[in-house]
């Protein structure tokens, strides 16, 4: 086991980035977790101070620091608002890797991550099994949302109203494609992402419909792996790198012009996390990672920025369906994408966009954060639910399947009859096929 000195040396490598934080505290205003708990150890400033204290051996509690570091949605709200430009997410991910290295992963996490995610075929098989068996374990909870709450296994699922696994994952429906570019002259690889594949295949369907409508040739390789964010955020670099390498094989960069995803989290991970966590690998791998990473693009940003899709010049009818839009942190805060999904909604005549208060307030899911800290996650989610409800729309749209899960859960628990859709689904429905 590493000594405290060794650990301190590792953490000291972060020092150049840590020292940039001037402790101004401005992140308190935007951190959804701090908004819920009011605890300084939950806000970026507190976590950065703990890491710095650890690196300077001011105190000796790596386990305590690690635990607090994991109380974080990795939503990037702090970084997006930081006057000093602290690269908070880079720091947190690196630090998690270092601390995990020190403590070793918990046996359960090791099994789940290494055994399932790290091996895409097994992961898919386990999830398919789950789809077949889940009906036995759950009962319908709220018809509008189509969620199910746990009848058995309450300890695992808690009170969550889970969006069930799709009966058939997207990859089983359409394993692969390799089309020539159409009118647009662009060929796009489509990175499906686990949540869309297994829970929201309709989003993948809609995405492909839209791409084809705009004359984009689709390259869809089979046997795609997870983008790696669950592994990276647990500090399991080994699994993370294995997944990225697998995807590098599946997506040879010379076969397409852009890499499109409809999952905000996948896009942000590929663009922002991949290059950072491959820094210390040899230049050859790093270059390949960078080349693929640079091609990654959010689907809304691609349609609006690259293909020039513009809002309908005719304003929507008064009786058009009112929909509101929730900004996924990974789109707005990590990638600066917020106008584009709105443009697509405005280019959809069947709907009328109504903004909710604070559309960019985090939904509270934060991936594995929600598994480990469900009450906190749900607390943040309730605030989002209230904002959605106050907007008075029957549909809430967003640009990330992870946010869709949380919105489903919170709206369903509150008994709301609001449906949750991906913005691309709305846009797709408005296209004459």
């Amino acid at each position, binding site marked *: 086991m590493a000594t405290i000195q060794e650990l301190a040396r590792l953490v000291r490598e972060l020092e150049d980035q840590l020292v940039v934080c001037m*402790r101004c505290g401005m992140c308190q*205003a935007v951190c959804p977790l701090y908004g819920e708990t009011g605890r300084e150890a939950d806000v970026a400033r507190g976590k950065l101070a703990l890491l710095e204290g650890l690196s300077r051996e001011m105190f000796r509690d790596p386990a305590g620091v690690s635990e607090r570091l994991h109380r974080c949605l990795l939503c990037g709200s702090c970084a997006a608002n930081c006057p000093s430009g602290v690269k908070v997410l880079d720091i947190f991910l690196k630090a998690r890797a270092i601390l995990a290295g020190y403590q070793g992963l918990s046996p359960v996490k090791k099994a789940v991550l290494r055994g399932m995610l790290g091996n895409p075929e097994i992961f898919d098989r386990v999830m398919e099994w789950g789809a077949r068996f889940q009906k036995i374990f759950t009962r319908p909870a709220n018809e509008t949302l189509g969620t199910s709450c746990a009848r058995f296994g309450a300890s695992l699922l808690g009170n969550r109203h889970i969006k069930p696994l799709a009966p058939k994952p997207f990859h089983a429906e359409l394993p692969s494609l390799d089309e020539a570019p159409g009118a647009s002259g662009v060929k796009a690889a489509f990175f499906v992402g686990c949540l869309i594949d297994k829970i929201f295949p309709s989003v993948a369907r809609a995405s492909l419909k839209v791409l084809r409508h705009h004359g984009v040739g689709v390259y869809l390789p089979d046997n795609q792996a997870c983008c790696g964010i669950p592994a990276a955020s647990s500090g399991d670099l080994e699994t993370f790198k294995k997944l990225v390498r697998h995807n590098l094989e599946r997506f040879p960069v010379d076969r397409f012009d852009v890499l499109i995803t409809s999952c905000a989290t996948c896009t942000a991970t590929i663009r922002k996390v991949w290059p950072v966590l491959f820094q210390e690998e040899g230049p050859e791998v790093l270059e390949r990672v960078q080349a693929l990473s640079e091609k990654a693009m959010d689907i809304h940003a691609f349609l609006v920025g690259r293909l020039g899709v513009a809002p309908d010049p005719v304003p929507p009818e008064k009786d058009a369906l009112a929909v509101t839009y929730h900004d996924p942190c990974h789109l707005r805060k990590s990638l600066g994408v917020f106008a584009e999904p709105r443009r697509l909604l405005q280019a959809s005549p069947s709907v009328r966009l109504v903004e909710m208060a604070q559309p960019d307030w985090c939904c509270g899911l934060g991936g594995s954060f929600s598994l480990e800290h469900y009450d906190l996650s749900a607390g943040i989610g309730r605030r989002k639910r209230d904002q959605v409800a106050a907007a008075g729309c029957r549909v809430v749209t967003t640009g990330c399947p992870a946010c869709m899960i949380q919105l489903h859960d919170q709206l369903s628990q509150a008994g709301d009859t609001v449906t949750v859709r991906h913005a691309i689904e709305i846009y797709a429905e408005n296209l004459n096929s």
Partner: protein
Amino acid sequence: MISKALIQEFQKVVGSDGVFADEADRAAYSYDAAVLEPVVPGLVVRPTTAEMLSRVVRLCNENRLPLTVRGAGTNLSGGTVPRPDGVVVLTNGLNRILEINTEDLYAVVEPGVITAKFAAAVEARGLFYPPDPGSQAVSTLGGNVAENAGGLRGLKYGVTRDYVMGLEFFDAEGNLVKTGARTVKCVTGYNLAALLVGSEGTLGVIHKIILKLIPAPQHRKSMVAVFDRVSGASETVAAIIANRIVPATLEFLDNFTIRAVEAYSKAGLPVEAAALLLIEVDGHPGQVEEEAAKVEAICRERGASSIQVARTAQERDKVWEARRAALSALAKLKPTVVLEDATVPRSRIPDMVAAVEEIARRHHLTIGTFGHAGDGNLHPTILTDRRDEKEWQRVERAIDEIFDRALAMGGTLSGEHGIGLAKASFMERETTRATLDYARRIKRALDPNNILNPGKIIGDA
């Protein structure tokens, strides 16, 4: 070390949720926004009622535990850096707006209410609470009162002190003290509120604040004036006031800050300019238009090379974006940011800007200066890396010299950021030995066990 038994006592008072005893939790309360060494406190407690707060103070006093109240921890002078054996008392569980009275124009709040949230709640009722420190999105009203915080509107609207009508606070024994009232006039007893404002938690623990509100101005107009000489800018400031115009804001950016903001935000600022003035007049529409025209003429007379008047709300936002971006733009240039606060009579601004430039040159330091020109309250912002020991020594010498120059010009150590630990050792330079003794005697009389934020402002009493 605070004993287990004592920790349990605190838990009995505030509940076990309200006591943080783990090292990692405590370590998150070891600092504030000042560039100082962190100190991990012995315990952190979070009361949620006045009753709890009073009992926490009493328990600290009975056990001789140093007590540091903490709002958002954004002060820039070490006011919330605790003692290693001390207790940090959080106010963010005391964050209710108790009353906004639109007839009698006052509000009653608990100390943990966030400044910007309060200002927005007041605005929603058609009224105005002017003090707007740059940290208002997170700072607390209790912290504002205890630091006598200022902001951008000080020239016309004053600072926090000018809005405190009354206070309720706990003395060192946890007894309730009431001062001031909900009335405009009140001469009932000593003006203890005045003593508490700016006391940085050393004389009492505030639990209720009565704040004055005013009607919101109906109209505002903003403009940016560009100057080739700093003296042109400060002569303009003097001339505006000599013409009986009191702008709501009158902000100054020096050339270094202009270039930093431009590099950061590409807003199209004139990078060659020696100084920018951002000016806003507000009030009755007719008067605002008239004053804006006068201000524009004065700027031209004093050699402004260009003036842009904001015609729309978007243009107005753009004007203020540059000012809001100043600290961010500077902060991004170097790891460590020391935000100074020396203040001079406003006519001495050109001398002070020149002095800061000269000090920066002599010590090979990077210093950008911006701030509240109307108040003579500049923020020379030293950009450095605190890990570079040699440079850090030069930074300390530079700060020392900035103070000396400001004092020589009839100025003061701190316009709004407070003394705390960071400037406690400079107090005698501005005042007298007797002044400090006088303050220490007050402190000793009111807090014989020296538990209330010891070491701050007056050193160890």
